[in-house]
């Protein structure tokens, strides 16, 4: 039932994303229009895949750090990705893939650093150390980013900042293909960890008594969720709130078991981001809002509502 509902919503969202846009494409030409096939459809599909990845990654990281307010970017990934992107622009690296690759490398670098911090002194990825390490690494990367920005030419940096707020204007079938090849492995790892993650919500010791190999579980989930987020940030920039809100909405509606939570969070995240991207490119047409601004404008009120619920219950 829930999957039928989500599938219908996904179809409607993708349909709207293809029909709506600044260029006027008559409805009867939809199937033959190059604007649809080369621009709108790959863009909508990419937004859907990235939103799904962020939703799943958010579910996994909230379970991993056992903190309901965790977000895929909490662990320093956005800072690292931003540093990579700004460095690529400042160094004037050539080619269409320089920016996403540099952002990916930055995000993975930050992830590796936080991971290493999380294992220091025999602390097996203690959630508190992961969170503190993530904030520290993120702040460090942001400081270097700002230093580069303050020394560089102003015109190019507008691009860097817009890129950081996220967007799909560069979407193509190639990007879609890259994600389609890349995402199944981390998604599969997370899907296999679904039941042990249910147990981890009880705490590490109780989870082990119920049969979870917590040490291995935490490492796998951390790496898979971070690599998923790093790919999302590389192709679409830092898009906040999807990975925070979607897990909570899905938990509220469909319960907390990860076997159901992962697929519903993937679909709901995809729907939310594809819809947000459609808004981003139509409300101020012919110009575009960074999609991260739309998700934040939608997301902050929902977040405030959730916080209130949390303190009430």
């Amino acid at each position, binding site marked *: 039932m829930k999957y039928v509902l989500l599938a219908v919503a996904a179809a409607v969202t993708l349909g709207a994303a293809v029909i709506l846009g600044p260029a006027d494409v008559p409805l009867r030409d939809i199937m033959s229009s190059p604007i649809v096939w080369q621009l709108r459809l790959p863009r909508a599909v990419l937004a859907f895949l990235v939103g799904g990845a962020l939703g799943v990654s958010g579910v996994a990281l909230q379970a991993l750090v*056992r903190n*309901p307010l965790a977000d895929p970017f909490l662990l320093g990934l956005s800072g690292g990705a931003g540093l990579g992107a700004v460095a690529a622009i400042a160094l004037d690296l050539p080619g269409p893939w320089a920016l996403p690759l540099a952002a990916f490398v930055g995000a993975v670098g930050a992830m590796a650093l936080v991971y290493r911090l999380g294992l220091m002194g*025999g602390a097996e990825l203690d959630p508190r150390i992961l969170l503190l390490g993530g904030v520290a690494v993120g702040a460090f990367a942001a400081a270097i980013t700002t230093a580069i920005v303050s020394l560089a030419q102003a015109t190019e940096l507008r691009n860097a900042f817009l890129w950081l707020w996220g967007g799909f204007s560069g979407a193509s079938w190639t990007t879609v293909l890259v994600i389609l090849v890349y995402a199944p492995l981390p998604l599969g790892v997370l899907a*296999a960890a679904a*039941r*042990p993650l*249910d*147990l981890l*919500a*009880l*705490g590490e*010791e*109780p989870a*082990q*008594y*119920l*049969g*979870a*190999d*917590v040490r291995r579980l935490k490492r796998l989930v951390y790496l898979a969720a971070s690599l998923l987020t790093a790919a999302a940030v590389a192709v679409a920039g830092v898009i906040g709130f999807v990975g925070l809100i979607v897990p909570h909405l899905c*938990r509220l509606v469909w*319960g*907390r*078991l990860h076997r159901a939570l992962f697929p519903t969070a993937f679909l709901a995240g995809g729907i939310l981001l594809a819809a947000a991207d459609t808004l981003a490119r139509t409300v101020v047409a012919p110009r575009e809002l960074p999609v991260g601004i739309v998700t934040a404008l939608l997301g902050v009120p929902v977040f405030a509502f959730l916080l209130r619920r949390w303190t009430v*219950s």
Partner: protein
Amino acid sequence: MDRELILALSGVTCRYPGAPRDSLQGVSLEVRAGEFHAVLGPNGSGKTTLVRAALGLVRPAAGRVEILGRPARGWSRRDLARVVGVLPQREDNLFPQRVRETVLLGRYPYLSLLGGVRAEDRAAVERALVVCDAAELADRWLWTLSGGEYQRVRLARALAQEPRLLVLDEPSASLDLRHEMELFELVRALVDGQGLAALVVTHHVNLAARFADRILLLAAGRPAGAGAPGDVLTRETAERVFAWPVSIAPFEGRPQMIPLRQRKDAL
């Protein structure tokens, strides 16, 4: 005939990294099928470390821990969870869930990666709920339960694991008298009726003396006495371990400990 040996510790010594002294030193323990074994001792005497070492979470610096003849740390967590059900002292409830879902977690060690929940899993959950007198709670949210109901539900979860050994770490710490008695009577009935082995860590000397077949008394990580309640709980031993004057009086053939008042003056 000797009953089957489920858990055996011999000469176990544990020290946490950076700790000034051993948390456990030379502790031995045997728990057999159909036996209720209690572990007593003041705060910091090593009771919880004993549980962790017994279940393979802490690697002993010396000594051996075996479960069904296999070294505790040689078991995979999944296989061990099919043999030992545990009520840890504390656990989190991060996200809201219902009682039946909670008890179903006890079936996770039996579920395959791709398969769903089978009929036999649901049957085991219902059986465990009935045994723990929690069947009427099945559809309640966990947060609406009283302390006593919550412990019964957690015991049902441990029973859904279909274990040979139950380990309870201070199960009645926050329970009132009735719920505490109900819990101990339930565990005793499981031990007698189903041949389960039980290892119960508790502060309640008198309950342990009434319900347990054997008692291990710990003091600062060392064994201060082991055996039948009547042999372990003598006045001399109890006063030494608990650092307080007590009187020991028999009740229904078991020793009961009454702490004496020391201070008779007014301030």
